[in-house]
């Protein structure tokens, strides 16, 4: 599922280049330019895809690993070593 999510994101980036609506001034529902509606839909699809990503592609265990590493390591410095 993780690869499906990343695949959808790649598809969204490709779909973003909508040369097919480049010269189309059609008003959908009588007021919405089709090019604008298309890209607004991309925004909604992006939100849906990122929702899936937080479920299926979120790095598993990163918080637990980080907390475990903190417990094992000395106090952080936040400064360069040079």
């Amino acid at each position, binding site marked *: 599922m993780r690869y499906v999510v990343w695949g959808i*994101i790649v598809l*969204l*980036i490709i779909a*973003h*280049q*909508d*040369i097919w*609506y*480049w*010269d*189309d*001034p059609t*008003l959908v529902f*009588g*007021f*919405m*330019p089709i*090019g*604008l509606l298309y*890209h*607004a839909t*991309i*925004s*909604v699809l*992006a*939100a849906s895809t*990122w*929702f899936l*990503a*937080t479920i299926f*592609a*979120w*790095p598993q265990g*990163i*918080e637990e*690993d*980080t*907390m475990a*590493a*903190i417990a094992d*390591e000395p*106090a*952080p*410095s*936040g*400064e*360069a*070593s*040079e």
Partner: protein
Amino acid sequence: MISLIIISVYLMLLLGLGAFASRLFRGTSQDYMLASHSIGPFLLLMSLFGTTMTAFALVGSSGEAYAEGIGVYGMLASSSGIIHSLCFFLVGIKLWSFGKRYGYTTQIQYFRDRLESDKIGILMFPILVGLVVPYLLIGVIAAGTVISNITEGAFSDMFAQYDYGVPPWLGSLVICIVVLIYVFFGGMRGTAWANAFQTMVFMVLGVVTFSVISTELGGVHAASERVLEKHPTKLMRTVDKGEEEAYEQQFQIWERLAWYNWAVDSGELELTPEQRETALASMRPGPPWQRPFNQRRAEADFAFEHGLLDSLTPEQKKTAELEQDDRIVPDPLPEDYVSRPLESFPKQAWEPEAIDFFKDQIGHPHEEGKMTRKQAMGRYRAMRWAPEEPHGINPWAFLTYLFIPLSVGMFPHLFQHWLTARSASSFKLSVVAHPLFIAIVWVPCVLIGVWATSAMMPDNPKVPLVPPHFNPNGVLAYMVNQLTNEVLTGFLTAGILAAIMSSLDSQFLCIGTMFTEDVVLHYGGKKRFTDQQVVVIARVFIVLIVAITFGLSQLEMRRVFTLGVWCFSGFASLFPLVFASIYWRRLTKAGAYACVIAAFGTWCLLFRDSNFGGNPNYLFLGVMPVTTMIAASTAAMILVSLATRPPSDETLAKFFAPAESAG
């Protein structure tokens, strides 16, 4: 005046919010700068969205849609919905882990450690702060413009030269001071609360603005259909043939006028009384203020039709066009003088002439029969300058706009949030909601901007609501002012200012944190200053940067959108550095220096080449300049890294999983 009172009350409310947050301030510099990492998912979303969207979203998007059409949404809004969240995923989560493990609070602390270089901070600090300045500038300029446009006529005898409204410089100054005060009182916690509050205010009032404006324009259908009829180019990304033909006709008429004016003014031609009488017989009707222009136009048509302008040389005609369009005639004339397009010649100071021309008709906007200075200048431009050529969007520019949202990977305020968030999971809401929030704000703004191109005055359907050559930065405020009553105007303006301030506050605090952490404490030593002294030093630095930004905002105006794109392009050109620092073990200190220098160098060169943002449609090699910057910084980083000594095993073990660092 009612609008001004509502705006003032709103600003007081913000100050109160900052003061309330200060009661929860724990007195330490850590709490002041980072709110002790206590910001939850909702505040984080509001803060991130409010800061990222800024004046760019409301003022910039509507203005740019007015100038360029609906394509602006695809160029930056839908692309940001994909790319911003991608950066959160690829960069943000990893950085959160590093920040948590090693205690980083700024990006320079991280890079110093990852690149094993103390001096990388000396190189990066001025560049990052220097790129934040245009980000602040966007808000400061937009705030002044909006307040000035909205408050026209608020005073009976003050600020006559600003149409009896608040001068733009004063509006900008007040907004800077208000944001400074609530940031100083409330620190990160107050800023996050103010940000969340203001983001909600501008989103709700944005929807209200859209609803009111669309109703005043006769409904969404009527407003859009008018655009389809008058400027269909604005509804797509290529030029409509009919609109192109209409433009060419208008341009020919304008050329005749330019040639005739020049011939008369230079003494080359003078119509006889009989010729003038014949010419004026076919003069177009119009209001009294338009009469001198219409007379000249009728005379020009007569002169052209009777061959009286045939003796002008191509150079004389070109000079005539430049003078008519208030552009500087070069001396000496270049070889390609005749063939060069008009836009390549800079404008001269035309405002005094416009004001002088209409001086008897300029007065208080509430006075019968008087026009404002802004209206006078608008009418002067409309009557005198060349018609605006419709233009589409270059597909390569559209494609390469995709690189610009990569800037979020290097925004200092976002970087700080990533490094210091309570948990990685607190970003989930932001990742999902960000594209939706962008759509909620941008779609109405883009529609309003496009409608502005074709809307007519409610009381006179023959007169365009927004005159030609209108400053795109002022479109939204102008529409609000023209189409709503004073009470609603006040509230809607508060919403616009909320968007502007919700960006300024985080930036102010962020540069303060960077200065104290990366310069003062790093070089001065952590034990040298008390917590209170650190907070004071941060505030002094913030005031200094705000003063510089305010000073810059008083220079020549640029389009908010254009400035934003240049600012974001600069940050985006540094994205390869942060990406490589996380995913490429072979990145070296020297490679990082090469990357930053190449990014900064190409940014400076291309920005200069674009007339310092003066050319809003500037492309380099047919693509957005950000493409060249990223290509240069990436190439420099890879080549120099491969040619220099790899990082130590200790550093690799610190930032990469054992299996990865083993190779």
